[in-house]
């Protein structure tokens, strides 16, 4: 289990929407394998009866009233966009 294969690295890159070259795939396979191998030391610990900690604060759901309020305008929202048209974000075609 300690190793991650080059195919798995390519699969994970694809899931994360990252394009990597063959050379990069080799490099990341080596590096991620050694990091994952290092992480295997956690298996020395018996955690069967330990609750996981997702968050240190004892927070329950933080609710607020569902009320509309002024925030940013459409023009502001589009201000930093790489491409826009007619008040919308513009992206390349989605369907082939």
């Amino acid at each position, binding site marked *: 289990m300690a190793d991650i294969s080059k195919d798995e690295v390519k699969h994970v890159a694809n899931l994360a929407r990252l394009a*990597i070259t063959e050379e990069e795939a080799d490099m990341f396979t080596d590096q991620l394998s050694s990091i994952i191998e290092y992480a295997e030391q956690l298996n020395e610990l018996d955690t069967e009866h330990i609750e996981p900690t997702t968050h240190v604060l004892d927070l329950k759901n933080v609710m607020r009233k569902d009320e509309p309020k002024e925030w940013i305008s459409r023009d502001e929202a589009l201000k930093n966009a790489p491409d826009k048209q007619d008040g919308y974000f513009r992206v390349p075609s989605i369907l082939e």
Partner: protein
Amino acid sequence: MSLFDHSIKQLEGMLHKKEISAEDLVDASYNRIHEVDDQVKAFLTLDEEQARSQAKQLDAAPDENAQLFAIPAGIKDNIVTKGLRTTCGSQFLKNFDDPLYNATVVEKLNTEKTVTVGKLNMDEFAMGSSTENTSYTPTRNPWNTDYVPGGSSGGSAASVAAGEVLFSLGSDTGGSIRQPASFCGVVGMKPTYGRVSRFGLVAFASSLDQIGPITRSVEDNARILEIISGHDKMDSTSADVDVPSYTDKLTGDVKGMKIAVPKEYLAEGVAPEVKEAVMSALKVYESLGAEWEEVSLPHSKYAVAAYYLLASSEASANLARFDGVRYGVRSDKADNMMDMFTYSRSEGFGDEVKRRIMLGTFALSSGYYDAYYKKAQKVRTLIKNDFDNILKDYDVVIGPTAPTPAFKVGEKIDDPLTMYANDILTIPVNLAGVPGISVPCGFSEEGLPIGLQIIGNAFAEGTVYRAAHAYEQATDHHTKRPQLGGAKS
């Protein structure tokens, strides 16, 4: 002597008595930046025109109620500043010139009338321990520019050490305020998780990230934290806990204070000169009437592994927002939307960011989630329990901030695991969610600063500051200044 050798309190007094002006302070900041930042490279973006005109306005309308009136500040570049470029040290955001709002911490500083001088360099998206992972020019250590300033808030620590600003804000996910503060000989505080609003902090690992101040003195640090702390309705994870006056806690009295010293923090891997500096700090505490005992935080050695799984998992989700649609760069190579996401991200992110996104995606992926992500969360519980148990019986935990003084530029950048090991003494504090500060406690043979880490109970920043301040007042490490250009001081 620089104006920035004074405390904020002294400068405020001088301003009110008209001995100095807001323009003098802003001049002092930019003069120093123009003098040394070619060597230090602490800043990514300067806001000189705006800062100078703000200084003129402040001089025209003095306000004695503003607690940080005309104090020049630097802001880490992952904290959004309205209308001022915010890059996170990444090429992906090199054109993010016009953020729409201020982070809550920036709003709070503005209310007290600080002057934002510019934005500070960092490892890309706060992923790194040396500021070499910036996708701009790496920051250098003001004590010796052959060495790294630490990271990821390297620009924040170096700018204060070099006397370019009076204080800065950094962010700390696994040590990113304390370790650079240690390497640069300044004071850096990571508050309790939830103490300071994260609204407007570009998220890296949301369950660990905290913003905190970097200063030259403990008093200034306490002053900044009491201003930026508090509940914020824009951050549902900010804690609804009263903010006491931290400066009131700086009594100099630590008589009877109980200090725990974890044996794991002085174990193999910690440089002998770092151990010596910490041991002599403990002698100072003894002479001040505090008591210390060796204790154990038995799960410390597992913290780095748990942290990299958890922080990377959270990062892989948080960084999904960088898709080339709403802000940042977009690749021009793609002719469909999926390729546009993929190419924009691949061109915009550096290797360390890609590595952590892939590690996190892997740890969260089907078939591996229980073995890695959930396992790491359970180990986090064990690490938190270690601190809870010790801090029941002791006021503070003390050890080194980092196992070594600053290392040379280029020395560790090719080996991720060696780089990660730098954070072995700071990471457990983030996992436990408790506050920790780094204060200067000596110098290595090569003249590089060494930092003492003081850790306290959740929301007991006041006790941490009291311990840090008493030590600082009994020693003179914090009065030393770097001679820029690589010479020893």
